[in-house]
């Protein structure tokens, strides 16, 4: 067994050696531009890309004509959401998503809200200038708007009803296990809703969403459904027809392919239209211009093929490993909680809170194992995970969480090593923890007046 052990497969996965082998010729002799239609180098590259497109499509039950290659899932999420909002702005401007989505979705939504607000402010300024006959500064906007009662101003209201660009967004809460409540989702839908964006599986707690049910709800109302499927694709079954999804984001490096390449599935029947983010040579049917990353796309295709062929067996193996890890830890340590759904869960995900031990300190103690802290203490912000908070996990426990992501190359031997290490280190840190001592003495920590910082 080699140290350190990698158990952070939600962050990225190591490339499968078979994927690398498939890529190498396209980095050496077969270096052609897939858009070069006039010679053999171009034809070879194009053929390789089209083969990969079929392989990626096959993994999700799509047609190859529905796959648009991108630089990764962040771009796919941006393209799907901004592309739909831009293209369908005449139809509506409302998006529904979850508080537990990836930042690539949440931050995209936040930008669209800002765009809409800026547009409304411009309209406000224009109307107020009309009314006052003088220039209006940004600082005066709010007070003047109230003074002139713009909420009830017929002209302003008419303007504000025009397609504005940007969007209004509803961020739905999730249940304790991280799943969306379908009734709440349905209740949030309005006649202005054009898009629902909900992930297949959560990257922190591994909870798998009821995608097919969400798809049915959206389809019945003519609302487009985007699914950020990055963490779940190749790990749990996913078929675009059964799920009735319209747009799907996928990334190669989360399924043992290379980094820097991803795809967006864009449905053809019924046809989904999106405005491109990048203009240029009109590659990828005009939806994503830019010379194709041929070698990486070939790798992506192979990664997709391997995932499709081996997913069923691999899911069984990873579930067994995950359960071994969970039992090993839970049986030897008290006061631990598993976060996320036990039933609807990614095979390789285990997210655990170790009460009275801080996540980052624990990660430092287990430096022979690469995991991720449920708390965001290692980043610039010291806020605990927004995903755990949205699931109702209390702040102190959210600070005490560790995410294990098991993958294709983890072994039983590694799991056993990690169990022993976790038990030792948690016990050591608890010996050092005033909270653990107090809890053991039966002191109610909630009764203490803490000095917050």
């Amino acid at each position, binding site marked *: 067994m080699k140290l350190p052990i990698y158990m952070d497969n939600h962050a990225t996965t190591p490339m499968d050696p078979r994927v690398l082998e498939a890529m190498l010729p396209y980095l050496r002799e077969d270096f052609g531009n897939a858009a070069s239609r006039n010679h053999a180098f171009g034809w070879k590259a194009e053929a390789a890309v089209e083969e990969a497109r079929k392989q990626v499509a096959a993994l999700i039950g799509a047609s190859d004509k529905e796959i648009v290659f991108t630089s990764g899932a962040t771009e796919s999420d941006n393209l799907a959401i901004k592309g739909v909002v831009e293209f369908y702005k005449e139809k509506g401007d409302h998006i529904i998503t979850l508080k537990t989505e990836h930042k690539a979705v949440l931050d995209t939504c936040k930008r669209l809200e800002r765009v809409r607000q800026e547009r409304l402010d411009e309209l406000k300024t224009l109307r107020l200038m009309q009314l006052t006959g003088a220039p209006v500064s940004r600082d005066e906007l709010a007070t003047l708007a109230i003074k002139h009662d713009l909420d009830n101003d017929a002209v302003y209201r008419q303007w504000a009803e025009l397609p504005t660009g940007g969007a209004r967004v509803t961020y739905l809460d999730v249940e304790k296990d991280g799943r969306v409540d379908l009734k709440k989702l349905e209740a949030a839908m309005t006649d202005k809703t054009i898009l629902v964006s909900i992930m297949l599986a959560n990257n922190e707690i591994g909870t798998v969403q009821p995608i097919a049910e969400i798809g049915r709800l959206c389809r019945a109302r003519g609302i487009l459904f985007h699914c950020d499927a990055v963490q779940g694709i190749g790990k749990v079954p996913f078929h675009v027809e059964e799920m009735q999804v319209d747009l799907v984001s996928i990334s190669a490096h989360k399924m043992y392919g290379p980094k820097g390449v991803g795809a967006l599935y864009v449905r053809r029947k019924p046809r989904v239209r999106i405005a491109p983010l990048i203009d240029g040579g009109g590659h990828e049917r005009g939806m994503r211009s830019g010379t194709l990353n041929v070698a990486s796309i070939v790798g992506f295709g192979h990664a997709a093929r391997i995932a499709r062929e081996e997913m069923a067996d691999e899911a069984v193996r990873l579930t067994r490993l995950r359960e071994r890890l969970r039992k090993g830890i839970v049986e030897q340590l008290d006061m631990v909680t598993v976060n996320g759904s036990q039933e609807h869960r990614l095979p390789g995900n285990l997210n655990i809170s170790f009460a*009275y*031990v*801080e996540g*980052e*300190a624990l990660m*430092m103690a287990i430096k022979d194992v690469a995991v991720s802290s449920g*708390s965001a*203490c*290692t980043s*610039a912000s*010291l806020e*605990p995970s927004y995903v755990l908070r949205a699931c109702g996990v*209390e*702040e*102190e426990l959210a*600070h005490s969480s560790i995410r294990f992501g098991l993958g294709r190359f983890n072994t039983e031997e590694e799991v056993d090593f990690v169990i022993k290490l976790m038990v030792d280190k948690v016990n050591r840190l608890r*010996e*050092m*923890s*005033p*909270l*653990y*001592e107090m809890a053991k003495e039966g002191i109610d*920590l909630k009764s*203490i007046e*803490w*000095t*917050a*910082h």
Partner: protein
Amino acid sequence: MAYSDKVIDHYENPRNVGTLDKADPNVGTGLVGAPACGDVMRLQLKITDEGIIEDARFKTFGCGSAIASSSLVSEWVKGKTVDEALTISNKDVARELALPPVKIHCSVLAEDAIKAAIDDFKKKREARRQQLA
């Protein structure tokens, strides 16, 4: 985040971890921070009637920097007078451990812990004096 060797040393070999008798009139206990914020520090000082800190013990729930900060001040205060200990500032701790900017907060907590422990000791002594009077 890359930590300095001193942080790692204090984290891996923390000095003076433990608990002193809270009921001892010569022991002052400072408990600062909050579980919701991700760090709680408890520093206990055993102080002679002459005001000399003869022993220190800490327990900390928090990240590596928080543990290192409390371990460091537990070493620093030993042998000092109460007044000398009160001059230890978070800047001294942050400098000694080369804490990254987002972790300065941990050194503030360590300074607060010293103050809280001494404050507790003074309150205890005052209460005892009143009892005797």
